[in-house]
Every structure is written in structure tokens, then in C-alpha cells.
């Protein structure tokens, strides 16, 4: 035991909805802080030494997969990218709100993301069937870069958990939905036109339901340009609505 090390108290939400005997509760785990400790390391240590039954998700441990998002002292963030040194002695951990609870800190973001993706048809709609033997069409490096910039979203769910609109209104697609459509709008291989995209997010469950609280921008672990992209979508969709939409 290092006498100068901090003793952390992790107050962790525990509940397994599929266990009828389980009820939501807080469990306090005390843990000695070690140099360079992330929340992911702290949780793994709890599971190894204190409570093997604790549920939390992780895959990459490097902020790439988006699995370990949770509420850290009330704010959404990735456990693997959060250093305990940046937090007070007491650390409160809750599962991300707005997603189906699997157990403890583990939530089913995948189910939500799939629903959103299907609703927004968030995949490339090719103009013609891809010929896998043909050479790919060229793309300007700047365009490829800007598409890649928006494609960095890891679907961790932090923007949904941080968004007051998404928390109040469950049909709101959130920043993750909008950034995805912004990405496909840029892609010249996508056959959809501006009117098609308007039909997907030109209402109150899309870009006009956003109240510009900008928490998504502030909590996004990938620092995606959400503020400017949502404002851009809003401007261009408003312009479309003013110039007259094609008849329904």
C-alpha cells in the first residue's frame, strides 16, 4: 500500500432488470488510486478483486469502440478515456440514460443505434450496384477528408445521454443521427438528393427538434463538429423549406 495514494470511493449503480430479486441500488467500492489510472482500470480492478459480478462494457480500452460510455459524476463520458486523477475522491457511476439497461453500467446502445439508423436509412444508397472488380471512382482528398471527419462517430451514445431534448423526447434522433446524415449528404456516391434528406430529418424529431443546448458538442469524446454541422443542416433545410419543397 502506497501511503501517499488517494483512496477512491466509487459509488456504482447496480441493478439487473432480468433478475427478479434485483432492485436498483448504489454500491460503494473503495479502491487505492494508482498512477495513470483510468476509470476502466478502476472498474476492472473492482471486478478482479472486490466484486466479480459487476457488469460494465468495454472492448478497445482506447476510446475507439465507444462501449464504455457511462455517466461519470453526472456527465456522459468514456470510462477508458477518463483519468481518475481528474476526478474527486468520490466518483458516481451510472449507466447512460435513454438506453435500455442490460445490467449495472451496461446499456444496449446498439439497439437504439440500429433503430435510429433504420429510421434515417443511415447507409450509402448507391446509384447503381457496385462492381467489385472495377476500379473505385476517384474522390478529391479534401472531400474524402471531410467525409472521414464526420465518419469518426463511434456511436458511444454520449450525445444522446447529454441531450436534454433527446432525454425528454424519445423520438429525437440526436446529434448522432444528424451527423450520420450530414456524412451521407457529402458523399457523391450517395444517390439521395437534398429533398430525400429533408424528408428524413426536416421535422421536430430531426433538426428542428434540436434546441441548441450544445451538450452534445461539449461531451462528444471524439470532438466531432456537432455544433457547426447541426447548424449547417438547419440552415440548408430551412432554405429548402422556404424555397418550396417538391410536392409530397
Amino acid at each position: 500500500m502506497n501511503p501517499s495514494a488517494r483512496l477512491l470511493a466509487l459509488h456504482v449503480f447496480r441493478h439487473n432488470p432480468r433478475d427478479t430479486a434485483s432492485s436498483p441500488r448504489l454500491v460503494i467500492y473503495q479502491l487505492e488510486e494508482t498512477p495513470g489510472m483510468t476509470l476502466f482500470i478502476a472498474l476492472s480492478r473492482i471486478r478482479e478483486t472486490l466484486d466479480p459480478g459487476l457488469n460494465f462494457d468495454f472492448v478497445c480500452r482506447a476510446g475507439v469502440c465507444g462501449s464504455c460510455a457511462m455517466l461519470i459524476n453526472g456527465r456522459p463520458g468514456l470510462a477508458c478515456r477518463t483519468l481518475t486523477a481528474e476526478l474527486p475522491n468520490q466518483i458516481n457511476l451510472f449507466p447512460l440514460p435513454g438506453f435500455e439497461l442490460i445490467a449495472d453500467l451496461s446499456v444496449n446502445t446498439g439497439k437504439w443505434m440500429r433503430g435510429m439508423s433504420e429510421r434515417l436509412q443511415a447507409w450509402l444508397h448507391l446509384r447503381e450496384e457496385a462492381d467489385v472488380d472495377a476500379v473505385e471512382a476517384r474522390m478529391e482528398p479534401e472531400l474524402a477528408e471531410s467525409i472521414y471527419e464526420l465518419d469518426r462517430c463511434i456511436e458511444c451514445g454520449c450525445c444522446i445521454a447529454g441531450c436534454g431534448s433527446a432525454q425528454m423526447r424519445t423520438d429525437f434522433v440526436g446529434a448522432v443521427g444528424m451527423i450520420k446524415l450530414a456524412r451521407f449528404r457529402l458523399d457523391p456516391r450517395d444517390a439521395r438528393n437534398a429533398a430525400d434528406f429533408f424528408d428524413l430529418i426536416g421535422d421536430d424529431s430531426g433538426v428542428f427538434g434540436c434546441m441548441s443546448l450544445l451538450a452534445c458538442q461539449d461531451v462528444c469524446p471524439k470532438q466531432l463538429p456537432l455544433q457547426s454541422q447541426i447548424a449547417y443542416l438547419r440552415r440548408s433545410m430551412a432554405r429548402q423549406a422556404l424555397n418550396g419543397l417538391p410536392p409530397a
Partner: protein
Amino acid sequence: MIPASEKPGPWPARLDLLQSLSGLLLGLFILLHLLFDASILLGKDAMWTVTRFFEGYFIFGHALPWLVSLFVASIFALFVLHAWLALRKFPTQWRQHRIYWAHMGAMRHEDTTFWFVQVMTGFGMFFLGPVHLYLMLTHPEQIGPYASADRVWSGVMWPLYLLLLWLVVLHGGIGLYRLAVKWGDYSDPAKARRKLKWMSRALMVFFLALGMLTLAAYLKIGIEHAPNVGEPYVPSLKGVS
């Protein structure tokens, strides 16, 4: 493909635009309104000149208070329109209130908290705004150094004005910031947002201070003028009467 019946059509976009536009107009109007009110700080003659100006005195040679009524009517209409449009965003169910409260408390995020301040101040103005607007609509001639001061003190309107000042400045100050981040196109969005936030704060502090000083000035005149309540102001300026 999306079936035609499920396509959003242009109205959600138009309503959002209209909410922003009506808010922008009302916000700019309030800033000018508070500046013109503050003319009393420069003296009774200054305020008298401002009121006569808006009654067309210096154009037509005599005061036409119905011009003020006409303007108040259009502001009233804009106010009702904005309130109706903003209602779309209000939390209406208990579930939504509970969720937002918990969310706001946990997040400790300024813009998230400020949005709720806008909801509360907007709700307050549903009730206080129409009282003021109706009085101005029906008594446009009673705006002047003594008439206004009498209304503030002898008419016991000062508690309403004090409350309304805070509601309108907070609501408008936050609202103008939100409009700027909502629609604006900036080369450095994060820097622009910090700057806009600072400007919004400075605006609120300035107009709250100015508004309180102005109200204090009317209170002082109103208390002094209480024995002669109802008597109109006669300007000391040369050449006008």
C-alpha cells in the same frame, strides 16, 4: 422510400424559423425599448422628447398617440405568435419535467440550465407581458415623464415592471445567444460560442443594471409627483410646448 403521408413537409421548418425570427425581432425591440425608457436618466425633457417623437409630434406637428397603439398591437401580435411557437418546445408532461430536472442537475451544463431559465422566464411572461401590453395599447397617451412615473408609483405597477424586467432581460439575453449558435456559420465555432456567451452575459448585466436604474428614477419622480398625480409634464425646452 418514405411514404408521402409520413413526409414532414415544410411546416416544421417554417415554424422553427418563425420562432427564431419572432424571437429575434422581440429581442431587438426589447433592447431598444429599455434604452428609450432610460432616457429619463438624462432628464425629464429627454424622455418627453422620446415619447413625443414616437407619437409623430416632430413630423406631423402634433401628437398622434394611436401611432403608439398601432405599434403596440403589432408587438402584441408578435408576442402571441412567439409564445405559441415556443410552446412547442415546453416540457408538458410530468415525466418530461422530472427527466429534465434530473438531467439538468446531473449535467451541471450551462446551456442546458439556461434553456430551463428560458422556459421559466417565458412562462412568467405569459402572465406579466399582457398586463403591460394591454395598458400601453389602451392608454398610449399616458407615456411621459409624469404619466409613466405616476403609473409606476401611484398606479403600483413597479412590482410588475421589476419582475418583468428580470424575466425579459434573462429570456432575451439567453435567447439571442441561442439564436446565434443555432443558425450562425463560424470559421471557429468553439471560439465564436465563447465570445457569444460572453457578449450575452455582458448584455444581460448591462440591461439589468440600466433597467433597475431607470425604474428607480421613475419611482423617485413618481413618489415626488404623487400629490399631483395625473398632471401631465410640461417641457422646459424652448420652442416646444
